[in-house]
C-alpha cells in the first residue's frame, strides 16, 4: 500500500482525546491516527498528510474549542478540493441546532455522535464511514476486508466487475 489513509481526531480536552484514541485502537494498524488540539493545529496536520502523498479518510471533530470552532473547521475542510471527500463526524455535546444545520448544509457532515459515546457506537460509525470512503474513492476493497464492513465491500466487488484473468 503506497498511500496511507489517516483518521484525524480534533479535540481540545486531553482526557477526551485520550478516550477517543483509545476506543479507535483497532483501526490504527490500517488507518494511522493523527490528533490535534485545535482547528489551527488540525489544518497543519491536514496539510502535512496531503503533502506527504497521503490522505485523510475520516475526521472526528469536537465543536466547542478555543479558536475556530469545529463546525467552521469542517466547512473550511469541505471547501478545499483535495480534502473534501474525507468523511466528517462531529463528536460533541454542545453543538446547537444552528451549528448543526450549518455543518450539514455546508460541511456535508456525515454523522453526529453525541457525547458521551460508547465504544461500540464509535466503532460502528467509524467502520461505516471508512467503508463509504473506500468505496467512493474506488480503492481496492480487498485491503480493507479485515477491518471494515466486509459484507458491504464484497457486495461492492460483486457489482463492480472485478474479473478473472
Amino acid at each position: 500500500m503506497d498511500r496511507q489513509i489517516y483518521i484525524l481526531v480534533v479535540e481540545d480536552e486531553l482526557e477526551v482525546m485520550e478516550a477517543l484514541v483509545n476506543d479507535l485502537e483497532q483501526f490504527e494498524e490500517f488507518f494511522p491516527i493523527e490528533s490535534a488540539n485545535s482547528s489551527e493545529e488540525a489544518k497543519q496536520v491536514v496539510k502535512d498528510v496531503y503533502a506527504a502523498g497521503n490522505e485523510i479518510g475520516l475526521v472526528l471533530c469536537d465543536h466547542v474549542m478555543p479558536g475556530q470552532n469545529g463546525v467552521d473547521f469542517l466547512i473550511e475542510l469541505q471547501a478545499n478540493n483535495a480534502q473534501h471527500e474525507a468523511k466528517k463526524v462531529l463528536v460533541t455535546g454542545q453543538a446547537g441546532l444552528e451549528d448543526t444545520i450549518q455543518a450539514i448544509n455546508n460541511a456535508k457532515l456525515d454523522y453526529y455522535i453525541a457525547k458521551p459515546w460508547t465504544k461500540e457506537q464509535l466503532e460502528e460509525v467509524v467502520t461505516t464511514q471508512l467503508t463509504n470512503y473506500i468505496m467512493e474513492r474506488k480503492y481496492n476493497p480487498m485491503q480493507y476486508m479485515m477491518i471494515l464492513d466486509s459484507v458491504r465491500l464484497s457486495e461492492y466487488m460483486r457489482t463492480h466487475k472485478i474479473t478473472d484473468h
Partner: protein
Amino acid sequence: MKLNKKQLIGIAIGLIGLIIPFFFHLEGLSDAGHVALGIFFLAAAYWMLEPFPIYATSVLVIFLQVILLSQQGFLFPESTAEYSPNNYTEFIGTLASPIIILFLGGFVLADAAVKYDLDRNLTRILLSPFGKKPGSILLGLMVVTALLSAFMSNTATTAMMMTVILPIMARISKTDPLRIGLALSIPFAANIGGITTPIGTPPNAVVIGALSQQGINIPFGEWMILATPLVVIALLFAWFLLLKMFKPEAASVEIDMSGKFNTSTNAILLYLAFGATVLFWVTESFHGVKSAIIALIPVVFLSLSGVITKEDIRKLPWEVLWLVAGGISLGISMKSTGLAEWIVGSIEWSAFGTIALLVVFASVSVLMSNFLSNTVTATLLIPLAVSLATSGIAGDGFNLIIVSLVIGVSASMAMMLPISTPPNAIAMSTGTIQTSNMAKAGISVGIFGIILVVIYALFYWPFILN
C-alpha cells in the same frame, strides 16, 4: 506513470528478449520466425513479470505482430519461400473471433444477472435443500458456487458468495475450524467450477481459440460433457478435504437467506434470455448453430429491450477480451512463421512416453498458474502443445484436443496461494485464513487435479471424442 525498480527491470528484460533473436541465427528457423520468437520472449516476460497490466501487454502483442509480421508491416511485405505473411486483419480480427463473441455474450448475461440479483436469488433457492449441518452446508455452498461460476466469472461469483458466508462466519465461534473451511470452500469451488463450460473462465477460451485455429470446433455441450464429470469429482474431493482438514465444531449452522426474485419486466426478460441462451448453448450439438452465434442473442435482446444500458456496456470487463485475443493472436504468428514447430522440433520428445508428456504438461500448467495468471499460463503453453500434436513428433497417441484440454483444465487447478487466482485473494482478504491453510489445502487439490486430469486424458476424453 511512475515506474518502480521491479517494473523497470521487467521492461528491460522484455526488450532484451525482443531484440536478441535479431542478432543470432537459429538453424532451421525462418527470419520471420526469429521476429516471432522476439515477440514471444517480450510477451512472456511482460505477462510473467507484469511491469504493465497483462491486458496492455496483449494489445502490444497484437500491435507488434501487425507492424513487424503482417503483409502491411515493415519487415515482410512480400511472400517468400519460407514465410507468407498474414494479412494484418487476421491479427486484429482476433478481437472479434468467435470465442471472444461467446465471452461477450457470457459477460452480458452475467452482468445483467448481477444487476437483477439473479445470482443471489438462485443461491438462496439452491442452498435451501442442504439443511443446517455444517458438512452439508459446506457441500451446498460449493455446489452452488461451482454452478454459478460455470456461467459467471469466478471472481464475481466469489464476491457474491462472500456476502453469503461472511454473516454465517460471524455467528460461528472464532476458534471453530469450520470458519477456515468455509472461507476456502468458496474460492476453491469457484476455481474448479469455472472449468465446466467454455465461458466459465478465460483459459477455456484460450483452449477453444487455439483449437478453432486448427479447424476444430468444440460445441458448448460437448465441452460440458468433457469437463463436467471431472469438475464433479474435483469438487467432491475438495469438499471432503476441507471437511477433514478443518473439522467443524458447530453442530448446526444458520443461513439467513431472505429475499425474493425481482419481478420487474426487465428482470423477467433477463430470466428468459438467460434460460434460452443456456438452453441453446447446451444443445449446440443437436441444432448445429454455433455457440458464438447464439451468444449474440442475449447481447441483441438485452440491449434492444433496455435491460442493459449504455452504462452497463461500458462497465463490461473488456480487458479480459483483450487478454484472450492477444493470446490467440500470438498463436497465429507462432504457427505461420514456423516458430512453434521449430521450438517443438528442438526438443527430444520421443524420450517421453505419452503418459509422461501429459503428466508434464498438466504439472507445468498447474505450477505456472499458481504464480501467473491462469490465462497467461494457458496462452504460453498451448502453442507448444498444438505444434507438438500437429507435427506428429510425439506419436499418434498424442491427441491435439486432449493435450489442449489438459493444459486448459490444469490452469484452473491452481489454488495454492493468495496470488494464484483473484478468488483466492478475496478469500484471503477476509483475514480468516492463514496462507499456510490455503497452501496445504491448495497443494492437495492441485496434485489431485493433476492425477485426475491425466486419468481423464487417458481414458474418458478419448472415449468421448472418438
